[in-house]
Structure formats: C-alpha cells, structure tokens
C-alpha cells in the first residue's frame, strides 16, 4: 500500500482517535503521543488494515488497547504517579478555563468514571456509534455495553444533580 492511500484512509480518523485517547489518558500530550504511536502501528501493519472492512473500528480498537496499556504501565510505576500529581497542580490554562463552566464540570465528572464506562460514553454520546459498532471496537457484547452506558450516564447525572443542588443552596 502506498503512503498516500494509507493516509487517505487513516488521516480522517486522526481527531476521533485523539478524542478517544484523550478520554482515556486525560492529558492532551499523552493523547497526542498515543495517536502518533497508533499511526505508526497502523502503518507497520498496513497490509492488515485492508483486510478489515472497517479500518475505523480497527484503528479505534488499537487506540483503546494502546491507551489502556499506557494507563496500566503508568499505574505500575511510582515515578509517573508522582509526576502526575505534579501535573495536576499545574494544569494547562485551557483545562482551567474548561473547569470553570458546566462543561468543564462534566469533564471532571467523566474523569472519575471507570475507563470502560468512559470509553463507552465517548463512543456513544460523542462519536455517535451504534451499539454494534461499539461492540466491534470493544470486543464486548451489546448488552454489556448498554448496561455500562446506562451506568455511566446515571453517574454523570447524579454527580451533576449533586453539584447543581449545591450551587442552588449556596446562592
């Protein structure tokens, strides 16, 4: 496969892969690194991508797996956790702006969700995937996905209501 052909297939997925990576890894830098890595992996296995009738699902699965691996190795090493703490004190101005409005609040709430639920919420409510597509990406059955999605949505709702009521009382 030629480079142009490959880029033609893969480049349009760039932002989708990035959003998924960001949802899992939170940090913008790490998400960008992850996208870079996934692109390299896809390029290396470029002959394989032809076999999949949906390269998007294949790329998304790869991104999800890569990011979860990154998370695992991060949790395994103490050093990066220290680094993470340091980072959270010194968040990007962009993040700080986000955190001030309601949208940022949901962003914060989503951080608290288990990764699996976060990914499902991302794929369904942000990327608007059908359940069958999510099932393909996550290699899970659709019922389990529905259950997790419902749980994730409800958690977000509860947290929002808590914060909302707190705001009302305060005023």
């Amino acid at each position: 496969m030629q480079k142009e052909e490959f880029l033609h297939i893969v480049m349009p997925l760039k932002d989708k892969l990035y959003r998924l990576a960001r949802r899992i890894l939170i940090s913008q830098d790490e998400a960008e690194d992850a996208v870079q890595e996934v692109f390299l992996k896809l390029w290396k296995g470029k002959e394989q991508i032809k076999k999949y009738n949906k390269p998007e699902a294949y790329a998304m699965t790869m991104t999800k797996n890569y990011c979860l691996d990154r998370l695992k190795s991060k949790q395994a090493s103490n050093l990066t956790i220290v680094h993470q703490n340091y980072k959270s004190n010194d968040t990007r101005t962009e993040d700080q702006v986000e955190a001030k409005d309601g949208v940022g609040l949901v962003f914060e709430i989503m951080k608290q969700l288990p990764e699996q639920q976060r990914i499902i919420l991302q794929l369904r409510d942000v990327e608007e995937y059908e359940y069958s597509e999510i099932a393909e990406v996550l290699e899970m059955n659709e019922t389990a996905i529905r259950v997790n999605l419902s749980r994730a949505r409800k958690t977000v709702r509860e947290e929002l209501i808590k914060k909302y009521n707190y705001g009302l009382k305060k005023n």
Partner: protein
Amino acid sequence: MDSKKIEQLLDAYFEGTTSIAEEKLLQEYFKSGEVAPHLEVYQDMFAFFATAKSEKTSMTPEISETNNQPFYKSLRKWVAVAALLVVALGVTFFINNNSNKISTAEQREAELAFEKTKEALNFISYQFNSSAQNLTVVKEFGKSTNKIFK
C-alpha cells in the same frame, strides 16, 4: 419541543435504550436554549458532548519511515548487513585456517612416513647389496665344484 416528550426520552436515555436519532433529538433540544427549568441540570451534560465532538488535535501524525527516525532505521539496516558480512568472513577465515592446519599436519605426517619408508628401503637395499657381495664367494665355490666334477 414538548418537555413531556423530552422527559420520556431522557428516561429512556438513562436506561440506555434510546436510538442515535432520539439522542440527536435530545442534543438539539438542549442546544436550543429553550430548556424547561427542571431539565436545566442536564444541559451541561449535552453541552459537554457537543464540545467534545468538536475537539480536534493540531498535531499531525507522521508515518513515513524516511521521515521517522531515518538515520536510526537505515543505520540498523546497515549494521545488520555489516554484521552479516563480519560473520560470513569470520566463518570462511576460520574454516580456511583450520583446513590449512589440518593439511600441514597431514603433510608433515606424510613427509615423515615418506622419509621413514625411504630410510627403510635404503636399509634394505644396503643389506641386499652387502649380502649380494657375499654371494661372490658362493660363485667361486660353484666354479671350483664345476672344475672338479667335469
């Protein structure tokens, strides 16, 4: 839109039973700005999804081998070739050297055997010659007996 309908959709939404089309309706409703006060709490949630949808990265992934670590990659290739050459040369040299050693050892052995054989043959011929000289006496003896028994 009718807030009753929206409430129903929301209930289904939180159970995970809405379709993509229905979820789009909810999106549209909360984007419209005419949200019933008791539903305002959900506005942020859908606003977040809308924001998250438009999130883009400014980075451009690079994939070409030549662009990505070109020196490292080509170096690796050439190191492999060089290593192969070294191994091949080493093996041939070793084999050559060893076979040379073997041949010289054999040669020496053969030479030794040759010398020994030569020596042995010389010894035999010397002994033979000296014995043959002694035979002249027998010849004389033969002559004398011939004279006597004529």
